[in-house]
């Protein structure tokens, strides 16, 4: 019967959530926004390509003065430049729109800024003046070096392949950090997208005055557990909806979007790190969900619940603000405090796990702590729901709940 009721609650909660237009509006808003941004990027790239082609074909001319003697006249001429000895007149010509641009190269361009004057072509297109002024300098310098290889070296344009070792093994580097870090992203995404639903999930029984009928038909633990499981399922469905446009964009519009070709073989998948990441994400989500559900059970309105919830959200964000400290000194007091304090533990531990600074023992302690505390908070949430949901218009204090529990124990034989 318990299993039957749990299934019934999960099925009811999932179906009615997925059946709501509001849910799909909120869920699809993110991928639609991503889609619009992608479309704008594609459109922007196409327009930029066209502009580039047009610009390449169009005539661009400038004048310049050279106090440094570094400028090679042939390079400047090839790019549309013409030397002048009358900078004031040249600037006046630019001001009058008769000349595209005028560059003033100082005696030492490495320490003194090169002055660039140009006809205003808009915020983005104005950048080409600086680009061309720089190109004239670079190409002139390359010409003076003579050897193309030396010229590339001088530019620092050299590929480097780095290999680092940890405990005698080759370290994964950035490619090893990204996979476990995905759990942190999923954790944040799911929590913030489902937060409102978590808060209102138990409030609904209270607001609709169905609590008493529910409590006499269904074990409150089954109800709360069913609601939490359904939140997991709904969260999973939402994650799929979000991933879909990303996959479509990557598979079908990779070249148009100028997306890099992701070679999965370049990532390092450490099974232990991934398992710890997944456990931390699930444990953290369970803890925050049961806590949020408990808040919803004792507060009379969504507004009241929201005020308490914002405190919870702050606890989640604090480790991100302290990330430099956590990364640089993982064994320091701040990192340790955030690692073991339950409501900052999921984010801190997931971050450290991805960076490889979370030891096996630490991971075991934090994962155990999160799951045990989730179970405890779930029990408290059930108790709060039992008492709080009958108080249709009042907030119930923990003192009231535990005082009642104590009185009961005192009277029991």
């Amino acid at each position, binding site marked *: 019967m318990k299993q039957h009721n749990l299934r019934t609650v999960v099925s009811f909660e999932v179906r009615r959530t997925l059946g709501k237009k509001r849910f799909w509006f909120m869920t699809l808003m993110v991928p639609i926004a991503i889609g619009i941004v992608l479309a704008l990027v594609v459109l922007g790239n196409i327009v930029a390509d066209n502009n580039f082609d047009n610009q390449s074909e169009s005539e661009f001319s400038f004048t310049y003065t050279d106090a440094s003697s570094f400028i090679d006249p042939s390079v400047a001429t090839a790019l549309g430049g013409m030397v002048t000895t009358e900078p004031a007149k040249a600037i006046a010509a630019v001001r009058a729109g008769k000349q595209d641009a005028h560059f003033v190269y100082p005696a030492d361009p490495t320490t003194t800024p090169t002055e660039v004057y140009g006809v205003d072509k808009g915020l983005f297109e104005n950048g080409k003046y600086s680009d061309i002024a720089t190109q004239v300098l670079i190409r002139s310098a390359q010409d003076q070096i003579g050897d193309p290889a030396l010229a590339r070296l001088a530019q620092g344009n050299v590929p480097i392949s780095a290999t680092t070792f940890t405990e005698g093994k080759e370290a994964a580097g950035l490619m090893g950090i990204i996979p476990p870090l995905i759990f942190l992203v999923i954790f944040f995404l799911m929590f913030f997208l489902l937060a409102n639903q978590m808060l209102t999930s138990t409030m609904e029984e209270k607001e609709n005055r169905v609590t008493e009928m529910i409590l006499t038909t269904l074990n409150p633990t089954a109800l709360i557990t069913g609601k939490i499981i359904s939140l997991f399922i709904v969260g999973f469905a939402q994650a799929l909806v979000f991933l879909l446009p990303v996959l479509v964009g990557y598979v079908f519009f990779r070249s148009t979007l100028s997306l890099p070709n992701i070679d999965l073989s370049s990532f390092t998948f450490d099974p232990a790190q991934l398992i710890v990441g997944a456990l931390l994400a699930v444990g953290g989500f369970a803890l925050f969900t049961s806590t949020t559900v408990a808040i919803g059970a004792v507060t009379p309105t969504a507004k009241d619940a929201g005020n308490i919830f914002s405190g919870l959200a702050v606890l989640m964000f604090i480790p991100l603000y302290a990330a430099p400290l956590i990364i640089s000194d993982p064994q320091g007091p701040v990192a340790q405090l955030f690692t073991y304090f339950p409501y900052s533990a999921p984010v801190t531990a997931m971050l450290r796990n991805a960076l490889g600074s979370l030891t096996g023992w630490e991971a075991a302690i934090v994962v155990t702590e999160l799951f045990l505390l989730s179970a405890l908070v779930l029990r408290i949430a059930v108790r709060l729901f039992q008492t709080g949901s009958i108080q249709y218009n009042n907030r119930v204090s923990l003192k009231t709940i535990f005082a009642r*529990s104590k009185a009961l124990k005192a009277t029991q034989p």
Partner: protein
Amino acid sequence: MASSKEALVHIEHFKMEFAGVTVIEDLSFDVHRGETFGFLGSNGSGKTTTLRALLGIYKPNGGTLHIDGRAFTPQDGSRLGYLPEERGLYKKESVLTVMTYFGELKGLSKKVAADWSMNYLERVGLGDKGKTRVDKLSGGQQQKVQLGVTIMNDPELLILDEPTKGFDPVNRRLLMDIIEERKRAGSTVLMVTHQMEEVERLCDRIILLKDGRAEAYGTVPEVQNQFGGTMIKTHYSGEIPTSPHYEVTTRDRNYAELTLTDTADESDILRGLVNAGVLVRSFTPIKLSLDEIFVQVYGEQSQAVGA
């Protein structure tokens, strides 16, 4: 249907406090299997609290509250039909979805719950509302749906907290019919009400709750006897003798009203008058109505009489 004497609901020395304030001091009563039991009391006298404690929603501060020999748990919900004082349904869902959900929670299969719901909706004139959202129904229509949810599992025990509260006359009659139907089907009914005509029509036994204690408890005639007992109106010739069993409260030529001061039988009173040489032309025992008893017990405390 006559009730057996076996107690389906047993409450003994029930005590309940909220924040140090005693709501129920020491309450004991039984509801027999198959009977319809009226739970009466003024507003705030602790009736709803007692029901909630009986159903495990509140934890009592003392005493025993049993249904069928043990404390109620939600696992027993499949045998219970409970219409709480605070009513509601999932307002954003369709009528059929809500009814089927509660049916499933009460142990019915989805199909049985859906079929029963459709039949019920047809019966109460809501056959076309199955797919309508609950909040699109009128208040009266929502009450009918709520009633359906309460009885859909063919409950052995029906607990109704002010069942006719807010019902229009049509729905009230429907509810009365359904209670009688359930009674005929053998259900035990425990109902809280302020409607004395409902009590007189339906209840086999009643309890009157005042200040956290039972003020009166028994069958309706027993309670009537308990409160001022019986008054006798008589037309006579002769001299009415004095008696320890009655007091002459009104005397007007050949008419008198005798108020019984103990539980003496009315036929004994009549025999006593005749034996004293009184020529009794008419002899009509009049009992206090429950309404009058209610007013007598609660006086100004009650705001709900006749509501």
